[in-house]
């Protein structure tokens, strides 16, 4: 149930991200279209969520922003998870020197303070569009995942079923891809969601710090723009929606992760207290 709600919300945002521009066209609004007659207009009339102090439509911006926020999330998530899998699984599976080296790398990235580092590096890159931001976030975000995956792989590697396949003379590649990786699917998907959310939040944070591209609109940039004007004017319709979108997405990933956790760790599966009460009543 929880999981289904979570997946529903994520899917909703994903769909909006994909069809966003088309949706905007359909409603005849655009994130950059300026309506000089409706500056700082509260919700209603031609602008469902009102307009910004620059005469642009908030809804159109949120819709357009969904795409970029989701792109940042997805790209950073993919980069992060790929790195985490490559580093973690390799280290865990091969052990020995490779492990020592990769673990050191992982541990180092674990202790480097990520936000400051991201800030410093993002300042380095010019005109930071969503992909760049995603790259940076992904590059700095893989370490915790790699650590977990390494530990998991290490334990999987020693499991009887892997041993048994190895006894048969199975190749290492196939051992990794066919026997080990599928068992990490739960971890990987949970981690991926975690990374996606982290990236969306980080993107918003960076936008807040002024690291974003003027030509793209994302939830983070909307918040950043809005805070400069909207707060003082009480223009909640401008400031609140992007934040809520992030929170909603976060809650959704949280819910899905709840479910994944329970699948991975059966002991987290809680009794259905409601059903029990009903049965015992």
């Amino acid at each position, binding site marked *: 149930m929880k999981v289904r709600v979570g997946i529903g919300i994520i899917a909703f945002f994903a769909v909006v991200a994909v069809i966003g521009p088309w949706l905007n066209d359909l409603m005849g609004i655009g994130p950059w279209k300026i309506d000089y007659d409706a500056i700082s207009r509260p919700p209603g009339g031609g602008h469902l969520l009102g307009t910004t102090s620059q005469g642009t439509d908030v809804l159109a911006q949120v819709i357009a922003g969904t795409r970029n926020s989701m792109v940042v999330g997805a790209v950073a998530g993919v980069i992060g998870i790929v790195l985490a899998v490559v580093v973690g699984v390799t280290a865990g599976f091969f052990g020995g020197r490779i492990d020592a080296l990769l673990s050191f790398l992982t541990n180092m990235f674990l202790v480097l303070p990520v936000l400051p580092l991201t800030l410093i590096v993002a300042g380095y890159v010019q005109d930071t569009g969503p992909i760049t931001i995603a790259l940076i976030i992904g590059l700095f975000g893989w370490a915790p995942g790699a650590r977990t995956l390494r530990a998991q792989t290490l334990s999987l590697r020693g499991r009887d079923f892997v041993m*048994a396949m190895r006894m*048969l003379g199975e190749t290492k590649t196939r051992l990794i891809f066919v*026997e080990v990786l599928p068992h990490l699917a739960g971890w990987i998907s949970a981690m991926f969601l975690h990374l996606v959310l982290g990236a969306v939040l980080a993107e918003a944070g960076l936008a807040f710090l002024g690291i974003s591209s003027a030509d793209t609109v994302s939830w983070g940039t909307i918040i950043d723009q809005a805070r400069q004007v909207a707060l003082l004017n009480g223009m909640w319709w401008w400031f609140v929606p992007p934040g809520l979108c992030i929170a909603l997405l976060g809650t959704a990933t949280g819910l899905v992760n709840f479910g994944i956790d329970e699948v991975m760790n059966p002991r987290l599966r809680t009794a259905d207290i409601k059903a029990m009460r009903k049965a015992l009543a």
Partner: protein
Amino acid sequence: MSETPILAAEDVTKHFHARDGVGRHVTVRAVENITLRLHRGRIAALVGESGSGKTTLARLLAQFYPVTSGEIRLRGEPVTGPDKRFAGEVQLVFQDPFASLNSLRRVEHNLRRALRLHAHPAADEDVRELLGKVNLTPEAEFARKLPHELSGGQRQRVAIARALAVRPSVLLGDEPISMLDVSIRLDVLNLLARLRDEEGLALLYITHDIASARYLSDDIFVMYAGQMIEGGPAESVIQRPKHPYTRLLIDSSPDPERAAGSSAFTVGEKLGEPPSLVDPPPGCRFHPRCPFAKDECRTEVPPRVEFPDGGWTTCWLHATRPEDTPTP
């Protein structure tokens, strides 16, 4: 018995390097100077207390890790590493049938991979033939099942079928039934016996359960603290144990016949615990627990004594008067 053993451990020793509680590097003498030969069409049982090195020996035979000294020989040839040819001859069956099958893969995946890897035909009927061999019928249905749809015994049979797929000549079973429900253990044991008889497999059967060792095997070997202390034909070991430790094992095993109906359960003396393998006792390793320990037991390693019934032991009690068994 004089034919070349298919798989043999010749005087093998395995030391592990680990850290002890204080963080010091220590050497765990898991297996020391053991010779074990597996012959075609025979089942050898390996019994012993927990931690006596049974699994280590089996894994040495399976080339899981290299020996510290000594040699593993396949058909008389020393083996150097776990290559494909070796895998095609020697297979291991694990203790836990729940853990030894990939829970995400169907039965046929396991079998087909095993067949392919060793260049055997891997069509549906080959898979079915294997399943038939381990009595999993209807075969086609079982081939499509996932491990969680199988009972423990069925899983263990799948694991055995997978091992058989490579057409090995040796099967090493590390407590293959200890995780199974009592009611289905016999099923698996009977299957192993049949494989020996029909396929002429050489089998190593590791167990805690002496009764099942007697039931299944031709020869029994007893390990204690990393060493082999007694061996011989099954009946002779069980009926006429030579080493006090073997006797202890047998006496400890539940035996409804012995005491049926009464609870006149004689309380053994303080039997102590197996020794540390890091710093084993000198002389006979069993001497601290042995009620018959003599002076030489404490200082000198007992020699190997052979008996006419085919058995042998390493015990000072027999070193002098090999012909009669001590009656404590």
